[in-house]
């Protein structure tokens, strides 16, 4: 049972850094788990701490900020 559980994670990705990095990861076919739901932000500094709380309230198991 424990192995079938898949966490639901919210990801804020900076348009200029991590979003392009994620794109590259896709293009280069690097394997990573499908647990991350991505929101593109224009800068990771744009992410208000309130967004994090909102994400948790909506039932995400974790919130990642990639800059």
């Amino acid at each position, binding site marked *: 049972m424990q192995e079938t559980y898949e*966490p639901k994670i919210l990801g804020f990705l900076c348009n200029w850094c991590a979003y392009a990095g994620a794109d590259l990861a896709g293009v280069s076919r690097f*394997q990573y788990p499908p647990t991350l739901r991505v929101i593109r932000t224009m800068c990771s500094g744009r992410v208000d701490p309130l967004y994090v709380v909102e994400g948790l309230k909506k039932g995400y198991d974790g*919130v990642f900020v990639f800059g």
Partner: protein
Amino acid sequence: MPVVEQLLDLAGVGKERLQLCWVSAAEGQLFANYVTELSDLIGQLGPFQPDNFKLELAAVETVLKSTRIRWLMGMDRQITEQENVYHEKMDSEAYQAMVKQAVAQEYEKGLILEALTDGPQSVREIAGKTGVPVYTVSLRLNDLERAGQAQFHKFEGTTAKFVLLAA
């Protein structure tokens, strides 16, 4: 970041559920590694039940919206590396301790405000609901009264009941 981590720990959510990593546009492999590694970490923590943390999350939200914390956020370099208008410079450790204390106090206030949304309550009832000690509740209620956010309502027998004050 330290503020939000502290709040998540106070709320019992655990700071591990929030992660911040730096990935440049050229580091696709690094990104994939981070996602794999951190997904495993969250997987080990297990599913998060927001319904069990309603009171706590609402309090965290109140804190993050509060003027006091919004003023303090991101001011560390301004205050510890430069000077204020009186040419005073604050020690980094002292500043962090001050912010930590402010966050803890605001969090207690947030909990009290959230508990009071259910109608008039006594100090003891609030303490029971929030897990904040009785004496601390009455201290924070005092602050809230002065800030115009809560008010003494009426006596029920000999116990004083408090209500929220509409902003």
